[in-house]
């Protein structure tokens, strides 16, 4: 167990330093890259805060969509990541073969893919996801 500040608090301290002190002090490409760097830290913070929960939800959706045998999700985070990745590769291959071109499988696949993409955007660019929903 590490001491406070925790990982998210440390990230936030570096992000604030970049945004408030480094970005205004630079110009040109360096200023742009400092802004990008601050944004990357925000992404990391959002990912750390919700990764396990969102991976579990993705694992459960994939289990339903791909119709695998009922079992419990892997308990360790690393194994859970690997399982979601392997199933996502299977799904991509089945779409590529045309299995999701029509019918109920298409609808189930699109719903799952949409939920997954929205979750990726919750981490990578929450504003973009909100703007898309507002425009509908």
């Amino acid at each position, binding site marked *: 167990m590490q001491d406070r500040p925790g990982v998210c608090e440390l990230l936030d301290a570096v992000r604030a330093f970049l945004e408030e002190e480094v970005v205004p002090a630079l110009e*040109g490409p360096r200023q742009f*890259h400092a802004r990008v760097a601050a944004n990357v830290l925000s992404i990391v913070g959002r990912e750390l805060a919700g990764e396990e929960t969102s991976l579990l939800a993705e694992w459960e959706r994939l289990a339903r969509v791909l119709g695998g045998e009922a079992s419990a999700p892997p308990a360790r985070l690393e194994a859970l990541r690997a399982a979601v990745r392997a199933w*996502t590769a299977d799904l991509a291959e089945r779409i590529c073969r*045309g299995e999701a071109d029509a019918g109920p499988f298409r609808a189930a696949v699109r719903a799952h893919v949409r939920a997954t*993409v929205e979750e990726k955007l919750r981490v990578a660019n929450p504003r973009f996801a909100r703007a898309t929903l507002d425009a509908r």
Partner: protein
Amino acid sequence: MEAVAIEHLRRLAGGASREMWAFDAVLPGGAVERLVLRRDPPGHQVLSSRRDEFALLAAAHAAGLRVPRARWCEEDAAVLGSPFFVMDFVAGEALARRLLRDAAFAPARAALPGQLAEALAGIHALDPRAPGLTFLPRPPAGGTPAAAELTRHEQLYRAVALDPHPALELAFRWLAVAPPAPRAETVVHGDFRVGNVIFGPEGLRAVLDWELAHVGDPLEDVGWLCVRAWRFGADAQPVGGLCQRAEFFAAYERAGGVRVDPVAVRWWEVFGNLKWAIICVMQARSFVDGARSVELASLGRRVAEMELELLELTEG
């Protein structure tokens, strides 16, 4: 021989895949030329040649299009570490967000739809069979430009992808159903958008970034201009954050562009979103393979934006 002095050398912002350096060349006698050097950053996935981009810029300039005059090309990497060319400096602004938000650029926002339409019609009027442009990639005989571009990008994607992307696979399937029928083939700029043009408060000054030019369907450029990323958040105006589709299509036709088929443009818009996603995947791959750049790293996480837009565009 008297030497030319280089002064005020500075790196210009923008361009994850290409370095731009502005400088003043002080000639013997004191005359000053304001120039820009464009260089491949060492270690990147480079898919185009500076010699070709240089030749195309020269052809566009000769045809009277608004482009910087091309001055010198050096392909020997030994000179500056990687190939480069030199062109005239065009003063102005390139930042899309400034164009779309600053009060000072309100006249440019009003003028640009017509000026971009005119510039694009001019590009499409270049002769793709001109002797100087034989290097331009063109669709294989017997195939349509749309099908050829789709195949080419699918191969690029399969060669570099680090992760499975079900959303991109769905887009490949959607696009394969009905690629636009062939029409008269023209020079296609390949990256014609806000962000790749220089403008002033009054409007368009120069069209840049010709490295993805090829011969193909002119409506590819029109669809690319409609891709959501090039609205830079000004989503209410689908064409570059500047105007509505119908307004731009009419201006482009008036300026001598080809007849616009909105269904074909829609296909190219979907393709454009997929292409930008693939470019971001390639940039992320460059980073993972060792190119140290926080910008390249961050682009890998932008793929999800295009994935959501692709799901929106192909719904129903």
